[in-house]
């Protein structure tokens, strides 16, 4: 009893150490990088550190803080919460004051990395009985790999990172015990990963499938048993994923997927040679600097040496080496060959998914390293030396060709590899004689090495900026009208859901018109007057853009530039309308102030400079041979006030409109809800047809009862909800059936064994 308590204490101390030391290392690296100039601690040439800490890495933390504020206000959509922030820490942010949210999520960032290290430690120590020192160091290498450091700022990705060691643990138990309950747990972890977000469904499930193959191969003594064990786990995974369908199916259907494989291949013809992939596996600082580079799995030289030693280890069966090699190669190729990567990333583009596949590989490599450490007796002295030399030689050979870092890094790694080799040799020979404290120098050295790694990852900017787009190529985006204005122009740039109603006869132009004309049309319907009047401007310079005299311009190249000059009179609010699609940018200059704005697509923007004479340079990119208007407009504030008075806020999606607000006969109800074909609208309990008017939801209805309130009900049914529900039911039934079948089979087996025993006794 006493021994068990001491053993638990020993384990818990390790858990806390892995957690705390990882947190300290991350916090220390961030602090050092943010507060010291390059070259102050270590010469820049050695670390490739030439600039201060990349602030972009914390960009996502800022976004999370701002989304949490929106969540507190009730402005964050359920879809975003489910997809991006299914994370207890995010909900904990609810009770944190707004001013402290950024600091809170920075702390969460650090804590999550600490937890990842502790969870991996727990798996290695409890399941694999790896020595505590090695388990802590290996757990920390997992959590402090460049990929985890990047993903840690994204809730959805980090959920999966934290669950990977848990999943490994459950898979290990399922293969070892083969019990019904252990398989149910594997199904449950698959279910949880899927529920937590897209990354969990795609990369998390892929990880469980591949890791379970490796674990099954490692823990069974033949290929046949390994496959049988893997098959049982796959069934449990399938049941878990199916049960999660109610969340998965609507989520995936909301992405505008493309099944046009030829198009995917055409769009992303970026292949890397096998040599490219090899070279980047060994780069010193590692971690791709941008997405177009080959993604690497860098997480330090220690696991790399252990991985090589794993393949040299005589005690490791050949089938496991073969399965591991195939898995490593396939994962790496899937990330390096863009077409495969994009297809696995769900026909779209998501660097997070690539990262997660690589993190999953890191977790598997940690498992393989641990197997190697547990079986150190299977290594000869020559194998240890060769294993230590191999990565150094590879770095020397490939580094210059890969071009990622200087040779100075190689010079730093060389003594590292020598020390690792010596430690392993001594430990392997003397582990039965030396007391445990002789491992302390190894531990200290390991920590120093990991800290240096982490520092290099942060300092060299090998962490991808968090604002790298993680969205899908053709994800449906429903945006409000792109009207940028300081004034609260009713309906168009309001945070509230609003609506207006006007007689249908009055509205002549709705969708097929440019935004100012449309706004004027609505304004005339409501007030009888126009909100905007055109203002003349002088063309100062034209580059690749020609004009006619009707206010229309034609871009003669995919990079056109027009410079105009506008005189603003006292009190005038001026707006600029640019009708070109593509990437437009505007630079205002009134001699005192400048303002810069860019937009994807046409926009109507308030001219920010308040000077009397304003030069505006308008860059139009990507739309060759296209004709569109460019206008300067004056806003009539009196008309604006009138329009405001006739606009109503929708406090909810079901509401009553006062009869005094609706004319008898045909009317338009125009909302500022971004149009989505999934919206269903009923007026006085009659379903009406919905229209997209300037991307906003609108309906036309007949008001026959002028004295009664008009009852409007707007509902949205996500496609795939019922399909997802039925699949979930199927998954739940399958889980129960699997559990029951295995339980019955096991009972029979037990009974048979008892009867057999009796028979033999007899």
């Amino acid at each position, binding site marked *: 009893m006493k021994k068990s308590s001491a053993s638990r204490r020993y384990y818990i101390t390790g858990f806390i150490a892995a957690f705390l030391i990882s947190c300290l290392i991350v916090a220390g690296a961030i602090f050092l990088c943010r507060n010291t100039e390059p070259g102050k601690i270590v010469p820049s040439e050695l670390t490739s550190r030439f600039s201060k800490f990349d602030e972009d890495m914390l960009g996502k933390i800022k976004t999370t803080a701002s989304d949490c504020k929106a969540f507190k206000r009730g402005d964050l959509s359920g879809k975003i919460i489910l997809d991006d922030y299914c994370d207890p820490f995010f909900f904990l942010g609810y009770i944190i004051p707004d001013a402290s949210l950024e600091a809170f999520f920075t702390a969460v960032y650090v804590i999550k990395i600490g937890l990842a290290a502790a969870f991996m430690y727990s798996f290695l120590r409890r399941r694999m009985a790896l020595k505590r020192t090695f388990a802590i160091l290996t757990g920390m290498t997992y959590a402090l790999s460049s990929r985890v450091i990047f993903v840690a700022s994204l809730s959805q990705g980090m959920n999966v990172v934290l669950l990977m060691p848990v999943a490994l643990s459950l898979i290990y138990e399922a293969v070892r015990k083969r019990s019904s309950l252990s398989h149910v747990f594997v199904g449950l972890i698959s279910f949880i990963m899927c529920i937590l977000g897209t990354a969990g469904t795609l990369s998390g499930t892929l990880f469980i499938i591949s890791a379970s193959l490796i674990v099954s191969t490692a823990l069974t003594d033949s290929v046949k048993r390994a496959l049988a064990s893997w098959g049982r786990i796959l069934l449990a995974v399938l049941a878990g994923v199916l049960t999660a369908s109610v969340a998965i199916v609507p989520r995936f259907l909301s992405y505008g997927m493309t099944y046009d494989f030829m198009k995917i291949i055409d769009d992303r013809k970026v292949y890397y040679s096998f040599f490219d992939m090899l070279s980047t596996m060994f780069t010193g600082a590692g971690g791709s600097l941008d997405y177009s580079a080959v993604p690497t799995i860098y997480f330090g030289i220690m696991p790399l040496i252990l991985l090589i030693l794993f393949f040299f280890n005589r005690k490791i069966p050949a089938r496991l080496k073969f399965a591991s090699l195939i898995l490593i190669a396939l994962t790496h190729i899937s990330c390096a060959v863009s077409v495969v990567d994009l297809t696995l990333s769900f026909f779209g583009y998501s660097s997070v998914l690539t990262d997660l596949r690589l993190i999953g590989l890191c977790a598997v490599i940690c498992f393989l390293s641990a197997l190697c450490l547990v079986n150190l007796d299977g290594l000869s002295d020559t194998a240890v030396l060769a294993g230590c030399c191999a990565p150094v030689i590879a770095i020397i050979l490939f580094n210059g060709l890969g071009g990622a870092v200087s040779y100075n890094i190689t010079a730093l790694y060389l003594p590292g590899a020598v020390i690792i080799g010596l430690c392993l040799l001594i430990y392997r020979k003397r582990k039965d004689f030396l007391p445990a404290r002789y491992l302390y120098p190894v531990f200290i050295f390991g920590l120093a090495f990991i800290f240096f790694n982490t520092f290099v990852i942060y300092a060299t900017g090998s962490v991808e900026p968090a604002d790298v787009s993680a969205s899908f190529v053709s994800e449906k985006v429903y945006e409000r009208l792109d009207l940028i204005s300081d004034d609260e122009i009713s309906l168009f740039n309001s945070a509230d859901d609003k609506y207006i109603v006007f007689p249908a006869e009055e509205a002549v132009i709705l969708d097929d018109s440019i935004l100012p004309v449309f706004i004027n049309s609505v304004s005339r319907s409501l007030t009888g007057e126009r909100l905007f009047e055109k203002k003349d401007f002088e063309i100062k310079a034209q580059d690749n853009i020609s004009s006619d005299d009707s206010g229309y311009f034609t871009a003669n*190249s995919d990079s056109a530039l027009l410079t105009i000059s506008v005189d603003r009179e006292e009190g005038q609010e001026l707006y600029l309308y640019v009708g070109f699609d593509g990437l437009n940018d505007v630079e205002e200059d009134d001699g005192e102030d400048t303002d810069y704005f860019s937009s994807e697509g046409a926009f109507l923007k308030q001219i920010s400079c308040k000077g009397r004479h304003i030069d505006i340079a308008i860059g139009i990119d990507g*739309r060759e041979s296209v004709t569109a208007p460019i206008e300067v407009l004056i806003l009539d504030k009196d008309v604006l006030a009138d329009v405001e008075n006739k606009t109503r806020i929708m406090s909810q999606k079901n509401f009553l409109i006062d009869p005094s607000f609706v004319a008898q006969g045909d009317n338009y109800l125009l909302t500022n809800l971004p149009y989505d074909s999934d919206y269903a609208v009923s007026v006085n309990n009659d379903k009406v047809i919905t229209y997209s008017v300037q991307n906003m939801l609108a309906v036309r209805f007949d008001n026959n009862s002028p004295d009664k309130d008009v009852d409007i009900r707007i509902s949205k049914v996500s496609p795939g909800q019922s399909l997802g529900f039925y699949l979930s039911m199927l998954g739940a039934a399958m889980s129960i059936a699997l559990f029951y079948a295995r339980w019955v089979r096991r009972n029979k087996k037990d009974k048979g064994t008892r009867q057999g025993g009796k028979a033999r006794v007899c």
Partner: protein
Amino acid sequence: MLSKKITDGTELVVFDMEWNQPFSGKTVSNEITVLPGEIIEIGAVKYEYSGGRLSRKAVFSCDIKPVIYKKLHYHVMKITHKTDEDLKNGISFKEAAANFRDFMQGADLLVGWGNSDPKILKNNLKFFGLDDSLGVDFLDLQPIFSVFCGQPGQQKSVEFAVDFYNIAKQDIFHSATADAQYTGEVFEEIFEHNKPAEVISAVSSSSVNPDMPSEFSFTGSDVKEADAAFAEVEEKILICPLCSARLASTISPFRIRKSLYGLMNCSTHGDIFVRVRAKRRTGGKYYAAVVMRFATQNDYYLVASKKEEFDKYGVKGAPAPAPQQPSEEEGQTNCE
């Protein structure tokens, strides 16, 4: 540079086209960049140069029935005054292209107003599976007119040029045939009002081979500062985009506000205009947008005028003019 000298008997074709464009945000079956516009009308006039004058020889006109962008875009509708009904009466593009090629036979130069027309013609030829080489040099008359009317650097409309030379307006503008005829008449007037040798010299130096890429644009990587964005591409703009030879500087690249200009020279391909703009992404990062192209009359003027401004005011450029106080009368008028 014109590949053949203009001499007596040289034939040239002045042409104009109208095209329909896809609706923004609407899904189309093809990539919009592959077919940014579908031609719906071609108009052309054939001239012969002789004795310092242009004489009209033949007129070509045809309406084309669109098959990809069948609904007229409201911008195009507003400019051309055509309707969806008008589009139904044309012939197929293949037929129209064959007829136009027949009409072009013997011509050494294609002339247009603006440089979009040959690009869109080649786009359409390629899209419809036809040979997209035009096999004849192209001249953008717009910058030539700007130079001879004393307003270099400004891209004036055909209507402005017609008014400038007091040419009688018989047809409405923005029909391909009418615009081609007006453009031809403007060209006649340019010869009429200037020394033919000067005009021929300007025409020769400004003509380009439309079958060769004449403009190259690319962007640099995302960086934190506008300065770094310029630095990031400073080596790239010293390389000829066609032959990769090191370019010599006719006017060394200089920066004025958020743009960088330069006039470079490739020993094989001639003068190359360079423009770099530092642009900012929504996230706050900058990147350089680079345009390199064979220099036209407008480009020479643009670089020279910007260089003058740079020499006088430095990187910040000319300050904005001092605001003029509106007169009391103006103020009252506006209030009304």
